[in-house]
C-alpha cells in the first residue's frame, strides 16, 4: 500500500515537472474564479445574461440591494421613503459613494441613469419595470425624488437590480457606457478578454469599505467537469456551477466545499393555451394532474431542488401540497381528458433549449413518459438556445420546457405574463380578469400581510387554470476551496458577497 502510494506520488510529481505545472495556489490575495459561460457585454442597463449580471454587480451599484432573505438594504442610497399616497419615493444618497475615477456619486448621476433606462433608444429591458416614473427631482446633490404616476410598491425591488445601476452622467453623455466599465462598486474591471478571462482589482475608494481580496481573476472554462478538475488541483479557488451532475461531485473532494441555495428561478412546462387542445381548461388540468413533479425533479435533476408553485419567494410561497393537483392523480387526469372530449389523447410537440438548463432534455423525457399514460404523445424538439428563444418569444410552440428567471417581488416577476398589458402576453397566451385584477391589487398594496393574501389567491387561481405546469426550483451552486471564507449565497444568485471574501492561508 505504502509502496503504491509512493509510486503514485512520485509519478504525480514527475508528471507535474514534465508539464511544468504549478500545484500550489498562486498569489494569495487574488481570488481565482471560474465559470463556464462568460459575460456577454458591459452595459449594465442592457445585459440580462446571468454571467453578465454577476460580473457587473461587482463593478456597478444600484440604489439599493436585497440581502440573502430578500430584504431591501442600502447600497448607493442610505435611506428611502414612500410618501403617504405611495406616489413619491425619496432617496438619500451615501455621501461617501464614489465612482472608480474618484468622482462623487450625485443625484444628477441617478437622474441621468434612470433617464437613460427610460429612453427607448437605449434598449433597456428593465425599462418595463420603471414605466410608473413620471418625473425625477434632485433638490440637492444627495437627494433624489421619484414622482410616480401610480402607487408602485414593487419598484423598490426593481431598483435593487444591477439593470438599474447608477452610472456616471458624464459617461452617458460621452456614449461610453458598455465600452468602458466605470461604476461605484467594490471592484474595477482591469481587463476583459471575452469568453476567456476577466481581471478585476479592488476599488480602494469603495464606500462599502475594504474588500477582502486584492482582486479577482475569472477564467472561462466552458466544460464544468474541467472546472472541477481545476479545483482539485487548486488552480481555482471559487467557481460557479450550473450542472447538478457536476455539483453533486464537489462534496466528494475533501478540500472543496459546495454552497447551494434554492433560487427564485423555476423550471416549468409552459402549455400554449391558444393552441388546441390546450385551449380547453380540462385538458390543461389533466396535464397538470398527470405530471408527477417530484419524479421530474428526482430523475432530471437528481432530486436537487424543491417542487414549487408559481411563487418561489420563500416569504410568499404557498405550500405546494395545497395547490391544484400537486399530488399526481392519473385517474382524475383521464376523467378530465374524457370530459374534454380527448379520451383517446392527442399529439403535441414540446420544445427545449439544448443545455439551457442542462436538465431540459431529461425533464422533457420524463414528462413525455408521464403524459403517455393519459394518451398524450409528446414529440421532443431540442433547439440551440437562440433558436429556442426566438420561437419562445413568438409563442410558436405547443409546449415548452423552460427555466424562467425569478424576481424578489411577485409583481415584477409575473406582470409580464399574467396582466392584460404584459409584454409577454403573447408567450403566456392566457389571461383572465381575476389574474389581472389580483396583479394590480398586489402592485398597489404596501401592507405586507395583505400583499401576501393577494398573491396567495393569485397563485391558487393560476395553478387551477393551469396555463403552465410549474415543476420545481433548483439550487444555485458555487464551489470553493475550504480556505475561502465569507461567501454568502443568495436566492437571486448574486456574487456580491465576494467583496468581503477572504483567502485564509
Amino acid at each position, binding site marked *: 500500500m505504502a509502496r503504491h502510494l509512493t509510486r503514485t506520488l512520485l509519478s504525480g510529481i514527475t508528471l507535474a515537472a514534465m508539464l511544468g505545472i504549478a500545484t500550489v495556489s498562486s498569489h494569495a490575495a487574488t481570488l481565482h474564479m471560474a465559470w463556464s459561460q462568460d459575460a456577454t457585454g458591459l452595459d449594465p442597463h442592457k445585459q440580462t445574461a446571468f454571467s453578465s449580471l454577476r460580473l457587473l454587480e461587482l463593478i456597478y451599484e444600484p440604489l439599493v440591494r436585497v440581502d440573502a432573505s430578500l430584504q431591501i438594504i442600502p447600497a448607493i442610497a442610505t435611506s428611502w421613503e414612500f410618501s403617504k399616497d405611495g406616489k413619491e419615493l425619496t432617496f438619500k444618497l451615501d455621501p461617501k459613494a464614489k465612482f472608480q475615477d474618484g468622482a462623487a456619486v450625485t443625484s444628477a448621476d441617478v437622474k441621468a441613469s434612470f433617464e437613460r433606462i427610460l429612453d427607448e433608444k437605449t434598449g433597456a429591458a428593465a425599462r418595463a419595470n420603471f414605466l410608473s416614473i413620471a418625473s425625477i427631482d434632485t433638490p440637492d446633490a444627495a437627494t433624489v425624488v421619484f414622482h410616480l404616476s401610480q402607487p408602485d410598491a414593487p419598484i423598490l425591488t426593481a431598483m435593487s437590480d444591477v439593470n438599474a445601476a447608477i452610472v456616471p452622467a458624464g459617461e452617458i453623455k460621452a456614449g461610453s457606457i458598455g465600452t468602458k466599465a466605470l461604476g461605484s462598486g467594490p471592484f474595477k474591471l482591469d481587463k476583459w478578454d471575452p469568453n476567456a478571462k476577466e481581471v478585476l482589482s479592488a476599488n480602494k475608494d469603495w464606500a462599502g469599505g475594504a474588500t477582502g481580496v486584492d482582486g479577482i*481573476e475569472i477564467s472561462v472554462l466552458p466544460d464544468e467537469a474541467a472546472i472541477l478538475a481545476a479545483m482539485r488541483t487548486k*488552480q481555482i479557488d471559487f467557481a460557479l456551477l450550473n450542472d447538478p451532475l457536476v455539483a453533486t461531485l464537489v462534496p466528494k473532494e475533501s478540500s472543496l466545499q459546495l454552497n447551494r441555495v434554492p433560487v427564485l428561478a423555476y423550471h416549468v412546462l409552459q402549455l400554449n393555451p391558444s393552441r388546441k387542445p390546450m385551449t380547453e381548461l380540462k385538458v390543461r388540468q389533466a396535464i397538470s394532474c398527470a405530471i408527477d413533479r417530484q419524479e421530474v425533479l428526482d430523475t432530471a435533476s437528481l432530486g436537487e431542488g424543491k417542487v414549487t408553485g408559481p411563487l418561489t419567494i420563500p416569504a410568499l410561497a404557498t405550500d405546494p401540497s395545497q395547490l391544484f393537483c400537486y399530488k399526481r392523480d392519473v385517474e382524475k387526469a383521464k376523467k378530465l381528458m374524457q370530459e374534454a372530449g380527448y379520451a383517446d389523447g392527442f399529439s403535441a410537440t414540446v420544445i427545449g433549449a439544448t443545455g439551457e438548463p442542462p436538465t431540459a432534455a431529461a425533464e422533457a423525457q420524463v414528462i413525455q413518459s408521464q403524459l403517455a399514460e393519459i394518451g398524450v404523445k409528446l414529440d421532443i424538439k431540442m433547439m440551440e438556445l437562440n433558436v429556442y428563444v426566438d420561437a419562445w418569444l413568438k409563442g410558436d410552440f405547443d409546449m415548452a420546457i423552460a427555466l424562467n428567471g425569478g424576481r424578489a417581488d411577485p409583481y415584477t416577476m409575473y406582470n409580464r405574463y399574467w396582466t392584460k398589458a404584459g409584454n409577454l402576453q403573447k408567450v403566456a397566451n392566457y389571461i383572465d380578469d381575476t389574474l389581472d385584477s389580483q396583479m394590480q391589487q398586489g402592485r398597489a398594496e404596501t401592507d405586507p400581510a395583505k400583499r401576501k393574501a393577494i398573491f396567495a389567491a393569485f397563485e391558487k387561481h393560476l395553478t387551477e387554470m393551469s396555463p403552465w405546469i410549474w415543476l420545481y426550483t433548483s439550487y444555485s451552486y458555487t464551489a470553493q476551496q475550504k480556505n475561502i471564507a465569507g461567501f454568502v449565497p443568495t436566492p437571486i444568485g448574486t456574487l456580491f458577497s465576494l467583496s468581503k471574501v477572504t483567502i485564509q492561508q
Partner: protein
Amino acid sequence: MNYLMRRLATFPLVLLGVSILVFVAIRMVPGDSITAMLGTEAGLLTPAQRDSLAAYFGTDQPWFVQYWRWIGGILHGNLGISVTYGRPVLDVILERFPLTLELAVLSMVIALAAGMPAGIYAATHNEKLSDLGVRIAAMIGQSTPSFVLGLLIIYTLSAGFGVLPAMGEFAPLWQDPLRNLSQLILPAITLGFAFAASVTRISRSAMLDVLSDDYVRTARSKGASARSVIWRHALPNALIPVVTLSGIEFGYLLGGAVIVEQIYALPGLGRMVLDAIQQRDYALVQGSVLFIALNFMIVNLLVDLAYVALDPRIRLGES
C-alpha cells in the same frame, strides 16, 4: 508556375462563394443579436427599443446593403467590427490564430511520428500478430471521440495525480514557451490520437500496395537490403496518400478544434467561432469563416505541390 497562377486566380471566386454562403446561412438561423444579448428578456422591448438596438448592431439595413458594406470593407482590408469584442474582426482572429496553428502543427507531428512508423511496421509484418495488434489499436484510436479521451485525461490527471496544466490563462509561445507547451501538449495528444490512428491505417495499406509492386520486387531481387527497400524505394511512393490525408486533416484543424478547445479551455479559433455563432456576432462569424476557407485553400494547394516533390512523374495542370 502556370498551374500555381491559375490556382491562385480561383481563390477570389471561391472566397466570394463562401462569403455569400456564410452571410446568408448565419442570417437564416432564427434569433438575432438582440435575442442573443437579452435572451427571453428581449420580449420586454418596445418596437422603438428594438429598432434602436438593431441600428446599434447594424442589422437595421436590408440584407443586400449589409452584404455590400461588408464586401466593400473587405476590399479595403477591413473585415468589420466584432460587437462582442468591440474590436476589428481581423485583430481578434489574428490573436486567436497562432494557438490554433500551433495546436494543429503539434497534433500533426504527434500523429505522423506515431502513426507512420506503426503503419510501416504493420505493413512489413503483414498478417502477423503484431500487425493485428497495431490494427486493433488503430481501430480503437479512430473510434474514440476526442471529448471522451480529453475528459478521461483531465480526470485521470486531476483525480489520480492532482496535477493539471494551468487552464484559463493561455501563455503564447513567444512569451513563455515552456508553459505554452505544457498547456498544449495534452490537447495535442487528444487531437493527435485519432489522427495518428488514421495515419497508421492509411500508411499501412499504402505500404502494402507499394511492397507488392514490380519495382520493389526488382529491387529485392537485385539484392537491396530490406531496410533500403522500405526506406528508399517503397516509402516515398507510399507517402502520397499520407500527405493527402494529412493535408485534409490539417486544413480541418486550422478551422479550430471546437470540442478539444472547449474541454481544455483554449482560446482558439474554433471556440471563438462557436461563441460568435451563439452570440450572433455576424461580423466575427463571417470574417472567421472566410479566414478558415482561405487557410483550407492554401493548405490544399501546398498538398498538391507536395505531390510533385514526392513523385517527379506527377505533372500538375497538364491534361
